[in-house]
């Protein structure tokens, strides 16, 4: 094993060199607390934060005053759901979301049951798409929030956000979208798309881990989630992770520079990998939508074999990927997302997600296809399941 091929960019991305360079100054040189406006060190930190804020707000077509830094995508999701729920509970206690949300949404909705909230989980079709008609009929007089992810982290399916936003606003319902995976991969325009709240996370776009963002449209009724000091204009307490905020801003600046080219290049690579697998390995199923999918997401189910074994063999060849099997987490159930698209358990267990970055070369892709071909062959030989005796 010589070369390392990192194909798990949906889990997290490498922090880009330029980002690290920018961050480094904020450790032992400009280390002031941005709340301390009465001395220079504090002002420097504050300026850095506001610069980042502007970069990111511009990128999603928001006003600077509508963007807040958080401690990550999960915090943003929790804030959105709990903040809206607790601020609007006099109006109603019904939330609509989908079956394929990230656990930061699903488990938060489940938790709110304790406070008397009810959640409708929308189905998805075989491609992971929600049905707008089902959304419409799920709306009740006491519905206070619709939370639907922009793009799915496992299968990459992109939802019709603008239409969902329209439907929400026709009914006077707050619309939140988890854009943790979509940011940097699709053009987001919070104004045009009728988005009221949006979750973001830096470490999915070449920034550091442990810093996230939240767009809150002016006027949206939402409680604070972390109470305390007056940071983030009184909306999110806690000393700002200045260095991380600087890194987030720089990462977005870099993406913004060549956005269209970047997406185009990724899409080509993605399609090449999809074609390579399809034409070289039998009995595979592409998960997610064929076209409305993230430009870097390749997710296949490989019949008769199990995902973890594949990942371990990939690791030995220096390839990092992820599986649809939650095997390692102690639960034996496969991904709730794959099950929601209608896959049976066995097939879902045999799913592998490759998420590409621009660093991946055509040779890498060929190597991955070859490696997968031999791994799947090897494991199918060990497997008691086969075409005649299918699951």
């Amino acid at each position, binding site marked *: 094993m010589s070369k390392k091929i990192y194909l798990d960019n949906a889990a997290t991305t490498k922090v880009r060199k330029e980002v690290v360079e920018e961050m480094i100054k904020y450790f032992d040189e400009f280390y002031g607390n941005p709340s301390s406006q009465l001395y220079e060190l504090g002002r420097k930190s504050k300026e850095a934060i506001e610069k980042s804020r502007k970069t990111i707000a511009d990128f999603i077509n928001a006003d600077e005053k509508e963007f807040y830094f958080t401690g990550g995508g999960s915090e943003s999701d929790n804030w959105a759901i709990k903040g809206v729920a607790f601020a609007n509970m006099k109006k109603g206690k019904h939330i609509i979301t989908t079956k394929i949300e990230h656990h930061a949404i699903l488990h938060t909705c489940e938790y709110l049951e304790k406070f008397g909230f009810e959640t409708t989980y929308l189905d998805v079709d075989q491609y992971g798409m929600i049905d707008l008609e089902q959304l419409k009929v799920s709306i009740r007089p006491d519905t206070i929030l619709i939370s639907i992810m922009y793009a799915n982290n496992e299968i990459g399916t992109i939802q019709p956000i603008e239409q969902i936003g329209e439907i929400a606003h026709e009914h006077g319902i707050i619309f939140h979208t988890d854009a943790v995976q979509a940011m940097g991969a699709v053009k987001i325009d919070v104004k045009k798309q009728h988005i009221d709240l949006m979750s973001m996370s830096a470490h999915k776009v070449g920034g550091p881990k442990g810093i996230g963002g939240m767009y809150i449209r002016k006027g949206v009724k939402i409680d604070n989630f972390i109470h305390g000091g007056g940071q983030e204009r009184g909306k999110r307490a806690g000393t700002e992770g200045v260095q991380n905020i600087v890194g987030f801003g720089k990462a977005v600046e870099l993406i913004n520079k060549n956005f269209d080219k970047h997406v185009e290049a990724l899409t080509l690579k993605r399609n090449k990998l999809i074609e390579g697998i399809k034409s070289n390995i039998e009995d595979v199923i592409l998960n997610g939508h064929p076209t409305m999918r993230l430009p870097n997401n390749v997710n296949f189910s490989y019949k008769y074999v*199990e995902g973890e*074994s594949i990942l371990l063999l990939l690791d030995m060849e220096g390839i990092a990927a992820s599986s649809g099997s939650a095997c390692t987490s*102690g639960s034996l159930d496969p991904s709730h997302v794959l099950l929601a698209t209608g896959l049976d358990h066995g097939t879902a267990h045999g799913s592998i997600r490759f998420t590409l970055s621009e660093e991946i070369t055509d040779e890498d892709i060929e190597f991955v296809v070859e490696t997968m071909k031999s791994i799947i062959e090897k494991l199918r030989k*060990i497997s008691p399941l086969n075409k005649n005796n299918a699951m």
Partner: protein
Amino acid sequence: MYTETVMDHFKNPRNVGNIENADGVGQVGNAKCGDIMKIYLKINDDIIEDVKFETFGCGSAIASSSMATELIKGKNINEAVELSNKAVVEALGGLPPVKVHCSVLAEQAIKSALYDYAQRTNKVIKGLENFNPEEEEHSCH
């Protein structure tokens, strides 16, 4: 997360395959749980002359199958039936807590194959009196 022994047995599993006209065959687990193990036994004079396995499952499932077959090969059926999952785990140098169920599955697969042999030959194997392959097959842990 896995010991070297686990990785060795995962990379180079021993006794992979099936046995035509096996004297006992057992299959446990199901696709829902993500693990299926099938054990084939060739038995002569109550001695396990050969054993093979086929496994659908994660790395530790494959390693557990491989190790378990190694541990009973050449053994008397009365010894083989006493193979515990703990013995498999120990021989593997340990398994992560969430993976211990794989060793349980290996134990059950072997018991299941021995049970099949006992049924076919009308023998009574001590330790299998209360074994019910149907029941085992549906538990997910």
